[in-house]
């Protein structure tokens, strides 16, 4: 279960390819493509590793309060498909 209060990271099996809309994400394990649909979401995902939890990564990327629920939903989806995971 995705818990934004826990430390997370981008999966080591994932590659992030920058694109004009944000980024394309490829998971070498599941061989699935997914999309980070805004540059800010790319910042959040790549910043996860540097922050104690997801909430801090959201704040560091400057995600506004009104946008937080949408970003948390997107991140929960990324956790479910293995793009991001809890840091050991």
């Amino acid at each position: 279960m995705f818990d934004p209060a826990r430390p997370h990271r981008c999966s080591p099996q994932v590659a992030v390819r920058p694109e004009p809309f944000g980024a394309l994400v490829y998971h070498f394990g599941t061989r699935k493509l997914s999309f980070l649909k805004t540059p800010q979401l790319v910042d959040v995902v790549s910043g996860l590793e540097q922050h104690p939890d997801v909430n801090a990564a959201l704040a560091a990327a400057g995600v506004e309060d009104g946008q937080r629920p949408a970003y948390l939903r997107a991140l929960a989806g990324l956790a479910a498909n293995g793009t991001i995971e809890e840091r050991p």
Partner: protein
Amino acid sequence: MKLVEHFQYGLNSPICLTWELTYACNLACVHCLSSSGRRDPRELTTAEAKSVIDELQRMQVFYVNIGGGEPTVRSDFWELLDYAVSHDVGVKFSTNGIKLDKARAAQLAATDYVDVQISLDGATAEVNDHVRGPGSYATAIRALENLAEAGFGQPKISVVMTRQNVDQLDEFKAIADKFGAQLRITRLRPSGRGADVWDELHPTAAQQRQLYDWLVARGDGVLTGDSFFHLSAYGEALPGLNLCGAGRVVCLIDPVGDVYACPFAIHENFLAGNVRSPGGFQEVWRGSELFAELRQPQTGGACRSCGFYDSCQGGCMAAKFFTGLPLDGPDPECVRGFGEQALAARGTDTVIPKSDVDHSRRTAPRGGRGPVPVTIGMRPDRACDESPLAGLQV
């Protein structure tokens, strides 16, 4: 802006790249998109092919669809496959199965990151061999048996839908289930030798409806390579991008390194450059004038006033081009019938473009397997029934 709208302006690297390794083929399918048969002496060398793979790795092209021709007849095929996989470029290759004996099947079963797609255009030998040549059904089934026996996980069975096999959809599904394979169906294009047989083999309007209804009812888990987006105008959009991806998210590298906007458009009008030129593939993808043009928003032309334009986007550029229809008008298989009207209205002075890239064999293949004795033109297989963004969730 929705993601799909971003896609129309193009990406930094392709998502769906088809790479045909050779024009050589042991078969001579009547509908071959790339008019394959004979090897071209200018084909990329092993070293050149490896440097293309290096470049794809740098550009983060995470997988390629390899075809031909019959790619496995290249003697360095297995070497290139290993090289790609070990450089983070996954491979799905299309084959008629000729080289997939028990040993190769076992080797593939032990390799991660490789997908195999066996071409089969009839659920019975009679229907298949009519299009793909005598013995080709047996070859494909033997390859599927070998893969299943070796424990290869879920190969794909790729079917080009024709007037003769639309009625066999359930049987294709049964064959796929029997071999633990996934069914993939794609659209017959009037490209390559396909132009010679398209009038005779493309599904009738009633069959298109039948195909659409089958996909809606039973198409769960069936791949389409996004190839039937022109049918979305029947109602429910089919899964996929529903956008022509040519030069935007899709392109083709042919055996001599020429880069075309899509696998169905091997013609000088859609030639963007060559991977051997300075700057390589990346320069072609990012800098070609043709691709810049294709990344402009489509205007819709004659289709603009149609209420279904949003769902079908005017259909397939290559299908229009190779039937002599204007690119900004209806698809020849427009579900509202405008394509048929446009085809009927072609004048005697209409020039139907023909590719001058043709590697069809001039004589029968060795072993006495001549072209199939049918009334239609001639044939193939290939790799490039690839379509944009198959199976993508966007």
